[in-house]
């Protein structure tokens, strides 16, 4: 059955264009539910979704929990800071405990790349990678693609600039893979120190000059300047970064009129994006947040509710 993907969603790498498009198309169905007076359907009644966050998050966690509740799933939530991890319990034991409480799906965020993959090997529950270190953040890439598709009709032929700390960004990695698979042309714009050394082989164009790129693009995707990186010596100073790569009103005026401005959040106003630009009509930052719930509903439904298990021993008579 085409609506039964593998057990888990761990990365955009390894997915096919067809799979991405299937998720994007199905998301329209769930987007409509969000606009109902009572935005809830019983599709995942009796299923339990656990969020395991070993790293702080506002929107990703709230977005997954909202998505799960709109599908009538129960939610459990685990944060590293307030758990027995601080007493020395291992991740594996933690996962086994959560599974013993009946979790059908684990949403995992961890500062180390590959953690979601390891957890997936340990458990029978489905796993969604909600960000693992500098590796991937596949649901962010899907919601970004969905947002662009909603505004532009399709990603085919769009020219998208991703601006900022590419080196440490799991969002950039997932976005590059998803956008290019869906037919967009991706330009990475960053100081050389913030580009990964292994950039060769990526399906992208590289630029160190934001001003040159802005008039030529359909989408300007800004990444957060992670405060924790500023002291690592990779950029001379915040001020210099703002001068060269910050999207201010003057720079935004050189963007085409129908271009879109995206940001995965949380934004550092005044650094990568000026406050007035975040309020520009071309900014779809809050749209991205709202679409995050719809895309996560579609993914939860595909992994838990599309009946993979039911189908296996189905002995159903033809039902009108």
């Amino acid at each position, binding site marked *: 059955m085409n609506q039964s993907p593998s057990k888990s969603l761990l990365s955009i790498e390894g997915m096919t264009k067809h799979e991405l498009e299937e998720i994007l198309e199905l998301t329209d*169905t769930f987007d409509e539910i969000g606009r109902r007076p009572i935005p809830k*359907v019983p599709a995942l009644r009796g299923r339990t979704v656990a969020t395991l966050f070993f790293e702080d998050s506002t929107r990703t966690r709230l977005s997954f929990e909202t998505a799960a509740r709109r*599908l009538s799933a129960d939610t459990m939530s685990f944060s590293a800071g307030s758990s027995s991890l601080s007493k020395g319990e291992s991740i594996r034991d933690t996962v086994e405990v959560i599974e013993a409480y009946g979790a059908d799906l684990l949403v995992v965020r961890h500062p180390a790349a590959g953690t979601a993959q390891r957890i997936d090997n340990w458990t029978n529950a489905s796993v969604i990678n909600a960000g693992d270190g500098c590796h991937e953040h596949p649901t962010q890439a899907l919601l970004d693609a969905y947002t662009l598709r909603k505004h532009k009709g399709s990603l085919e032929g769009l020219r998208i600039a991703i601006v900022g700390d590419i080196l440490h960004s799991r969002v950039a990695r997932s976005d590059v893979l998803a956008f290019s698979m869906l037919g967009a042309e991706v330009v990475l714009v960053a100081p050389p120190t913030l580009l990964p050394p292994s950039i060769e082989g990526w399906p992208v164009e590289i630029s160190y000059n934001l001003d040159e790129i802005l008039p030529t693009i359909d989408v300007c995707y800004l990444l957060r300047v992670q405060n924790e990186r500023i002291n690592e010596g990779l950029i001379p100073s915040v001020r210099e970064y703002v001068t060269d790569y910050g999207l201010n009103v003057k720079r935004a005026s050189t963007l085409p009129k129908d271009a879109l401005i995206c940001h995965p959040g949380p934004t550092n106003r005044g650094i990568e994006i000026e406050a007035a630009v975040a309020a520009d009509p071309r900014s779809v930052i809050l749209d991205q947040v709202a679409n995050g719930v719809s895309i996560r509903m579609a993914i939860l439904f595909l992994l838990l*509710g599309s009946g993979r298990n*039911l*189908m296996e021993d189905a002995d159903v008579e033809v039902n009108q």
Partner: protein
Amino acid sequence: MIEKERGQAPPFGGVFVAHARVLDSEDIQRAIQRMAHEIVERNHGLENVVLIGLQTGGVVVAEMLAEALKEINGSHPPLGTLDVALHRDDIGMRPVMPEAVTDISVDLDGATIVIADDVLYTGRTIRAALDALCDFGRPKEIQLAVMVDRGHRELPIRPDYVGKNLPTRKDEVVDVSSEGVDLGRIEK
């Protein structure tokens, strides 16, 4: 319509083969005309009446009813579509189809809803539709119009307006389109 739904939905996964034509397109038009008159009669006009076609087979029936009601009344009632896939009790046995759109833009509080579907069988689709509609508001009344009632109900649900009562065996399948009603079977 039916081929598409079943083609995507194992364990059915076969092709619908018609064995007998039960109603032709003129019969369908006559049935629609009669049901439209019954709707007007029962509700003393069309005030507050809203037609909701169930995705996917019921949408055509709702559209045909709307057309007939327009001829009787001058204008047709608000028309919506509803996909009950996510409200079903056998969820997972059928695909959720992105093209089956739910579109209800009219306020359902206090409305008299007429649900339109192609075939009434176990009643489980209608149960799901009743649940779903109550998430959109508090209708005054919900009525049910079906082109074919084929029996074999598993829930206490009955139609208010019926195009054709058609006794069937459980292994048969009824296909409704604007061209006609066919009785047949799914063959691998």
